[in-house]
């Protein structure tokens, strides 16, 4: 089993955190995990992204140019990453913010109103956690919802404990959303 994922969006949308939580959850499960951030010039133009690889084998390249999964949070990232996705791969896009029409016919699109669901959970800033919930449903063969929530608490609990409840709710809303449309 090897899964890889690129998460892309504006700086500040928590795309790095989302990737780290997944890598952390994998580490806790004794799986191998790599998390690779974009840094330097790649961050210009409003996009930040990270690549996560999770495997029960030794991980080869942490660099992935044809991801199996992508979570895309805004238009500029859509421009850049939609074309990279592996054929038959999955594009999870934030339909609240992405106005661009999907261009490909050989990948699966999952439109998630991430900001709206996050708003319901208590804060638009938890849109990344909605997406974590979505990936949680898609990767339910690897993680339980509780395992992802626990990794989230570990990652943000100390610094921003006030976000924990909102985040949990957002993860659950994302999970339910994915469950209902797939």
């Amino acid at each position: 089993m090897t899964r890889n994922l690129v998460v892309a969006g504006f700086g500040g949308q928590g795309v790095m955190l989302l990737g780290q939580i997944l890598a952390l959850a994998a580490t806790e499960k004794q799986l191998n995990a790599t998390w690779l951030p974009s840094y330097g010039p790649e961050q210009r133009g409003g996009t930040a992204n990270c690549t996560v690889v999770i495997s029960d084998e030794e991980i080869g390249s942490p660099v992935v140019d044809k991801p199996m999964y992508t979570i895309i949070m805004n238009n500029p990232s859509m421009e850049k990453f939609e074309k990279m996705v592996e054929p038959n791969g999955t594009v999870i896009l934030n339909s609240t913010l992405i106005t661009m029409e999907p261009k490909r016919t050989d990948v699966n699109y999952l439109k998630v109103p991430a900001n709206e669901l996050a708003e319901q959970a208590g804060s638009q800033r938890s849109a990344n956690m909605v997406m974590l919930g979505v990936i949680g449903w898609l990767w339910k063969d690897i993680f339980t919802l509780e395992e992802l929530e626990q990794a989230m608490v570990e990652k943000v609990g100390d610094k921003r404990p006030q976000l924990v409840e909102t985040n949990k709710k957002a993860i659950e809303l994302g999970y339910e959303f994915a469950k209902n449309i797939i």
Partner: protein
Amino acid sequence: MSERILMKGNEAVGEAAVRAGCRLYFGYPITPASEIAEYMAYRLPQVGGTFIQAESELAASNMVYGAAAAGKYAMTASSSPGISLMQEALSYMAGAEVPGLFVDAVRGGPGLGDIQAAQSDYFQLTKGGGHGDYHLIVFAPYTIQEVINIMPIAFETAFKYRNPVVIAIDGLIGQMMEAVEFPYFVNPDEVPLPNWALSGKFRHGYKKNVNTSLELDPEKLEAINWRLQAKYHEIEEKEPRYDYVGVEAPETLVVAYGTVARVTMSALKKMLAEGKSIGLFRPITIWPFPGKALAQKAVNAKRIVVLEMSAGQMIEDVKLNVFDPNKEYEFHGHPGGTTFTPSEIEQILRG
């Protein structure tokens, strides 16, 4: 058994050094190595160590020189332009036979270059870099776990041969996070103080120790240099490290190290599963270069593919060691701006 944790490469460098017994770190900020200094500034006071932010790379490297000449595990970390400045201390330390650990998070050059992952310090690290006939011992790990595994070996090797050691990584290894474990914790009090350490005569039998790279008598300097060469030959015999993944005597032999080797692994495994006659030879020490082992693996190879994040530096050592003009040598490089992608390498390897 230690627990597995998710850790950033640069922080793992620091933690590994602490666990290897290093309590003295001297640094100067530079991207993409600054997080190593930041981690040590936070971590060393917790274990009774000292972090100093030096006024320059010149000062930082010479502080390492002083502390190591005093017999202690000491280190600094920097990135290519900073390492250029440290060549002064490195040459002196090699000449005066002072150990010490230097981490180079290699970035694009020449000059200020950029901050992206690169391997274009190969020449400066493996061929001497500074003035004089000397070599640094250079490890080039390809995963964060390998950085961790190498760290205690790096310090031990430095002290065993009384020679500076470099661990060459890059911004990619430094910035990424990976599930790792630290299978050791060395108590620095249990690391014996060498008898050559500058520590006050009372610590070593009341006979004075002098540490110098100066010898104005030309015949004596020549003798010293031949003795150093003998040491380097011994290191070349005993210390080369490499990894090989592939079929026994491949038709296509890929040579790559560090991040490039890791990115290659994905395509390699795919092609091996298809039954292709291919193998990846990965030097773990780039000096001493594992040339003999490489030559053996290359015996049946028709095609030798060298991949580097430079314009072609290690390829010189590859050709020198394979030493066969009838083979087809192929170089592909990314000189410090972008990184190889798995698909790109797959395309290259499929020819």
